[in-house]
């Protein structure tokens, strides 16, 4: 129950399409989505494989609660080896695509090999076909979505697609579903592009059932009540979205600004949730048009925005497509495209966000890479000749949006930006200016002001990431209990606990944002009444720890070992200049040894035989 217990396997090289039963023994040990798909992936794929070669695989996976009435039960993940990092990649998305895949009758789709020509995968229940995509190759996500919808003649079909950036191998290109939700990080879109797979369209009419319906309704109703009554999930997120954090993080002195030169951004208010809600002078409307929920979500944090009709980004030919409402700024995007580059122009950032959705770019890595390029430009390392005339000074909104346009189609200097900040800074001889861990740009929390996030970034299995252990919850918001963001004491245990719990949540089919209000005590009964197997909090924590160690093992075998659990020197050696964190560096050395010990790993970060055997690995 809850699982469809069926997998779809597509060999893109031969065109062979097969189905097979889900390995239920593994489902008991890895639950679904992130955990279970990573189990399949690591069993089937050589860790040393080139991420953009046909030998890499790409898995779209749902969780047992995907497509049920559990709040936020609409998630899916894409699992592969990431081209940006060379590490395990797992990117999670909402919208409506994941449930549709499940309603078609499959828990996951495993894609192998490489199609000889551009194709898209069409899944209508048991009618599964690879269809020619040569006519949509070279089109944006938005245009591909419209073309495929017209072709399949079904207005209820849901589509996940890549843009030109994915086709051309931009290393942080993403997979966008429903026009503005994305499996965003680690370059999963480039892997899809390398397989000549433009899109997947799904439409299903098979229902999802659960083990104990009455118990499930009781557990999910109780969960929804907790979300509704919580200040963050019941009020803050629906009203302000994740952008509720912009002023909060800035005031905490943890706002990575101008490629981490600073930790406070003087323009933060201009690009905050509060600014998005203010009526503008030109048409009296606010940037924020409405909030939107993903499938099944009773929080509804998504932003739908419009750009000021008089703004410079809408001037000129071919701009009609940006003159209506579309997916707007979330906090990470507003930070990366804004604070990280020193740009405080809300409409320029909204336009840049639209471009990310249209072309399939991860706004975190894009913004952070442009920030690194700006640092190189300001330092005189690169000049107008190299940038093709882009004046990449911090704070230049015109240059920012032009850089985004070019990266979306991987042309001009955009092709270089598409390599990501690590490769860009290495190319120009200044690797220390890249704010990355394991090759992936880190997100919107400066570890000098939120110490736990330093350990989070350093140890994340997919490269720097906030969604692997969001200790901001505890250190800033006081969830589940307040810890001091400026100290390192106790953070090793906090990070481990968050990592393990999050791995379980990411494997269930629900959204990690629920954990602003839910603990595993709220989540376990929902899984337990949906799935066979006796899903207690303890079992979920064990599953989470098993998943974490499985991912770690894969990375070790791929050559990414303990020496890569580090942070850029700028964070380790240059103290914050102002704000609450003034004088502090990221105290990683004070946390990492304790973290290894708590994990049951050796002093060089290798899981011990004892730990692996305890977890059944």
């Amino acid at each position: 129950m809850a699982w469809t217990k069926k997998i779809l396997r597509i060999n893109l090289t031969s065109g062979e399409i097969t189905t097979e039963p889900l390995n239920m023994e593994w489902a008991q040990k890895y639950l679904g989505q992130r955990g279970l798909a990573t189990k399949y992936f690591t069993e089937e794929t050589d860790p040393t494989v080139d991420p953009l070669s046909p030998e890499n695989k790409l898995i779209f996976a749902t969780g047992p609660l995907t497509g049920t009435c559990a709040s936020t039960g609409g998630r899916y993940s894409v699992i592969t080896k990431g081209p940006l990092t060379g590490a395990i990649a797992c990117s999670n998305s909402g919208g409506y695509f994941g449930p549709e895949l499940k309603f078609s009758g499959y828990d996951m789709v495993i894609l192998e090999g490489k199609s000889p020509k551009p194709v898209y995968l069409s899944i209508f229940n048991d009618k599964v076909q690879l269809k020619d995509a040569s006519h949509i190759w070279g089109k944006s996500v938005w245009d591909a979505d419209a073309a495929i919808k017209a072709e399949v003649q079904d207005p209820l079909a849901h589509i996940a697609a890549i843009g030109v950036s994915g086709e051309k191998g931009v290393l942080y290109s993403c997979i966008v579903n429903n026009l503005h939700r994305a499996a965003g990080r680690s370059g999963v879109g480039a892997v899809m592009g390398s397989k000549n797979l433009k899109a997947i369209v799904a439409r299903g009419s098979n229902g999802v059932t659960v083990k104990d319906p009455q118990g499930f309704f009781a557990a999910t109703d109780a969960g929804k009540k907790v979300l509704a009554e919580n200040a963050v999930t019941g009020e803050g997120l629906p009203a302000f979205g994740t952008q509720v954090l912009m002023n909060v993080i800035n005031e905490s002195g943890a706002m990575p600004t101008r490629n981490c030169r600073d930790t406070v951004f003087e323009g933060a208010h201009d690009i905050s949730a509060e600014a998005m809600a203010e009526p503008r002078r030109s048409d009296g409307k606010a940037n924020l048009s409405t909030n939107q929920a993903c499938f099944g979500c009773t929080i509804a944090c998504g932003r739908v925005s419009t750009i000021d009709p008089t703004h410079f980004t809408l001037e000129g030919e071919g701009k009609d497509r940006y003159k209506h409402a579309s997916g707007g700024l979330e906090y990470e995007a507003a930070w990366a495209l804004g604070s990280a580059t020193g740009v405080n122009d809300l409409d320029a950032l909204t336009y840049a966000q639209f471009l990310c959705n249209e072309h399939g770019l991860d706004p975190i890595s894009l913004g952070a890479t442009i920030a690194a390029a700006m640092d190189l430009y300001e330092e005189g390392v690169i000049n107008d000749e190299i940038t093709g005339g882009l004046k990449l000074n911090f704070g230049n909104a015109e240059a920012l949006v032009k850089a985004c346009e070019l990266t979306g189609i991987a042309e001009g200097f955009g092709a270089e930006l598409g390599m990501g900040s690590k490769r860009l800074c290495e190319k120009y001889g200044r690797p220390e200016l890249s704010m990355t861990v394991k090759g992936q740009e880190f997100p919107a929390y400066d570890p000098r002001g939120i110490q736990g996030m330093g350990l989070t970034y350093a140890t994340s299995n997919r490269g720097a990431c906030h969604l692997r252990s969001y200790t901001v919850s505890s250190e800033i918001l006081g969830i589940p209990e307040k810890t001091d963001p400026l100290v390192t004491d106790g953070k090793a245990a906090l990070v481990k606990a968050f990592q393990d719990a999050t791995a379980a949540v990411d494997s269930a089919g629900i959204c990690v944002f629920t954990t602003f209000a839910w603990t595993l005590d709220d989540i376990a009964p929902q899984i337990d009444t949906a799935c066979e197997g006796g899903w207690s909090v303890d079992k979920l924590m064990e599953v989470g720890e098993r998943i974490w160690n499985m991912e770690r093992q894969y990375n070790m075998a791929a050559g990414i070992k303990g020496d890569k659990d580090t942070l850029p020197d700028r964070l380790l050696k240059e103290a914050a200049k102002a704000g609450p964190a003034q004088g502090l560096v990221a105290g990683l050395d004070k946390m990492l040894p304790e973290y290894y010990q708590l994990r049951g790993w050796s002093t060089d970060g290798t899981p011990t035989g004892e730990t692996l055997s305890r977890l059944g690995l």
Partner: protein
Amino acid sequence: MQLALVIDPGKCTSCKQCEMACAYEKEQTFNPAKSRIRIFDFHEEARFVPYTCTQCDEAWCQQACPVNAITTDHASGVKIVHDNLCVGCKVCTIACPFGTINYNADTGKVIKCDLCGGDPACAKACPTDAITYSDVEQSGFEKMKAWAAKTDAAAQS
């Protein structure tokens, strides 16, 4: 007092909880494809609109049915499709101006909203009160109240 589904698109977030609740009530499975209520996403206008049968007093579907398979429950005003009589001719789906009665290929019968016998699952599942089940004669109350306030504010200024 007769009750009806009162829909306020301004409050809808497009979460689809109503579609799942409806499908579960009618088909015992989470399957929005079989829902009698549907949310429309007008993406470019940033509007999400739930839509379902409004239980017409003189219903086109009922009048078109050649075998009298659609009857009225006079207490609630609900138009009910009787599966044992329905022959799946689909004429009602042509007659209905709103598209809210549809053919279910799995059963060979038509399906439409029947207000769940007086306790509609969609309204109970809606987390934002975009769908409520209330007095049909007062369904305009909240809108009138909002406009009364606006009018009064204008008159005072």
